C-alpha cells in the first residue's frame, strides 16, 4: 500500500506541478486559441493530480501532512498545499520555469509522450483506481502530445526565429528528460516527431540533479500554497 501510495504521489505531483506552471500562461498566451488549449492541458493534468493524490492518501494515510485538530482540509489538498518542497516527488522537468512558448511546447511534448506511454501500460495495473485514472489519462495525454506535436512542427518549419527558439527551449527540456525513466517506446515517438520536424535531438548531457529539486520548486510552492496555508482551518 505504501508503495502504491508513493507511486501515485509521484505521478500526481508531476501532474500538479506542470499544471501549475501551465496555468501561468493563462491570459498570456500568443493567441486566444493557445490560451484556451494550454488551459485545457493544465485542467486535464489538474484532474489527474486530484485523483492520484486522493488515491495516494487513501492507500497510505500516513503520507498526509498533519493539520490542526478539526481542520476540514481534504487529504488531497493537504498533500498539495501542506507539504514542503522536499516532500514533493515530481521530476525536475515539470518545475522549471515556462520559458517562452517554444520551450513550453517542447516540455509538453516530452512530458506527454513519456506519460502517455506509461499510462498505456498502467491501464492494466492491478489497482482499479489507477487503472481508471490511466484509461482517462490516455485520451487526455494523446491530445496533449498531439497539440504539442503540431506546434512543434509549426515552430520548426515556421520562421528562423521560431526554429531557433524551439531548439534552444528543447535543449533545456532535454537535459531533464532522463528523470522520467527509461522508455524506448516514448523515445521512438520523440525521434519521429523530431525527424518529421527536421530538428536534431539536442546535444546535451543529462543534468545531474542528484534526485533533488531545483531552486524553482520552493518559489512555485510559495505562490501555490500561500492562501491555503494562511487558512489551515478554512473551507473552500
Amino acid at each position, binding site marked *: 500500500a505504501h508503495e502504491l501510495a508513493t507511486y501515485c504521489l509521484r505521478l500526481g505531483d508531476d501532474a*500538479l506541478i506542470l499544471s*501549475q506552471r501551465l*496555468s*501561468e500562461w*493563462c*491570459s*498570456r*498566451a*500568443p*493567441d*486566444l*486559441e*493557445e*490560451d*484556451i488549449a494550454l*488551459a*485545457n492541458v*493544465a*485542467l486535464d493534468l*489538474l*484532474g489527474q*493530480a*486530484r485523483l492520484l*493524490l486522493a488515491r495516494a492518501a487513501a492507500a497510505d494515510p500516513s503520507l498526509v501532512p498533519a493539520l490542526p485538530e478539526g481542520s*476540514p*482540509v*481534504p487529504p*488531497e*489538498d493537504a498533500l*498539495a*498545499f501542506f507539504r514542503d518542497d522536499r516532500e514533493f516527488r515530481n521530476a525536475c522537468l515539470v518545475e522549471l520555469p515556462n520559458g*517562452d*512558448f*517554444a520551450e513550453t511546447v517542447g516540455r509538453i511534448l516530452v512530458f506527454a509522450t513519456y506519460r502517455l506511454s506509461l499510462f498505456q501500460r498502467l491501464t492494466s495495473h492491478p489497482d482499479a483506481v489507477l487503472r481508471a485514472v490511466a484509461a482517462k489519462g490516455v485520451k487526455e495525454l494523446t491530445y496533449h502530445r498531439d497539440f504539442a506535436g503540431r506546434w512543434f*512542427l*509549426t*515552430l520548426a*518549419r*515556421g*520562421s528562423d*526565429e*521560431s526554429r531557433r*527558439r524551439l531548439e534552444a527551449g528543447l535543449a533545456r527540456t532535454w537535459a531533464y528528460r532522463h528523470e522520467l525513466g527509461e522508455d524506448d517506446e516514448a523515445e521512438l515517438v520523440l525521434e519521429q516527431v523530431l525527424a518529421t520536424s527536421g530538428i536534431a535531438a539536442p546535444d546535451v548531457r543529462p543534468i545531474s540533479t542528484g534526485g533533488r529539486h531545483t531552486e524553482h520548486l520552493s518559489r512555485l510552492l510559495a*505562490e*501555490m500554497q*500561500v*492562501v*491555503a496555508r494562511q*487558512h489551515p*482551518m*478554512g*473551507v*473552500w
Partner: protein
Amino acid sequence: MSSAVAEPELAAQFDATVRRKDRIEPRDWMPDAYRKTVVRQVAQHAHSEIIGMQPEGQWIGRAPSLRRKAILLAKVQDEAGHGLYLYSATETLGVSRDELTEMLISGRQKYSSIFNYPALSYADVGTIGWLVDGAAICNQVPLCRTSFGPYGRAMIRICKEESFHQRQGFELLMTMMRGTDEQRAMVQESVNRFWWPALMMFGPPDDASPNTEQSMAWGIKTHTNDELRQRFVDMSVPQAKALGVTFPDPDLKWNEERQAHDFGQPDWDEFWDVVKGNGPCNAQRIAHRKQACDDGAWVREAAMAFAEKQKVATA
C-alpha cells in the same frame, strides 16, 4: 448611383426587420451608423472578456484547494472562449481580431471599467462571480434578443456560461461564510469593495446616457441603464441576506410602494475618472495585454509562415 436608388428600400426593410424583432445578418444591408455601433459594442464586450481574465486569473496560481483551482481555471478559460466568439461576430462585419486588439491596446476602444478594480483576495473570485457576473448577466440576457444575429447567438451561449459562473461564485462565498471568522471577514470586505463598482456596470444614469435612445431604437439595447440597475439591486438583496453579508449602502431599503428597493447612487465622479483611465488598474491591464501580444508576436508570425509554406506545398 444604382445603390442610391435602392437605399431607401433597403432601409425600410432593415427597419421592418428590427421592428419585427428579427435578426439582422452580416450580409444584410444595414445603416453605417448601425454597423459602427454594433462593431463598437461587440468589440467592447469582447475586450471586456479578455481583460476580465486578469483580475481573477492571477488567483489561479494561489487557489486554496485543487477543486477551486480547477473551477477558476475553467472559468477564466471560458472568458477567453467568450472573447473568441465575440471577435468572430465582429469578423462577420469585416473587422479582424488583430485590428480590434490594436484598438484595445492603444486605448481607442474601451472595456468594462469593472476590471480596472483590483482583485485583492481569494474572496474576490467569489464576489466577481456573484456580483460582477451577476450584473453582466442582467446586462446581457436582453442582448440574446439583440437585432444583430451573430451577436445575439453568441450572447445566448455566453449567458448560459455566465449564469453557471455566477452560481459558482455565489457558492464559493457561501462556502467561505460557513468557514472561519477570517474567511467571513474576507467575504464582507470583498463585497464592500465590489458593490458600488458593480452598480456602475450598468452605465451612467439614464439622463446622462445619450446613446441609449438610438441603441434601443435599433434593438441593440433593450432596457435603460437605470431599469437594469434596479433589477440587479432587487435580485441581489435577498442573495446577500442568504449569504449573511451586507451592502455598504445606508440608503438601501425596501420600498413597499414601488415594490422595489431604494438605494444610493454610486460615486459617478469616480466612475468617470476610471473610464478616463485613472482607475487603480487601467494601465496595468493594458500593459499586461500588450506584453502578451508582444511576447506572442513571433509565434503568430511563425504560424502564418508555416501555413504559407503548407499552401505552397499543397498547391
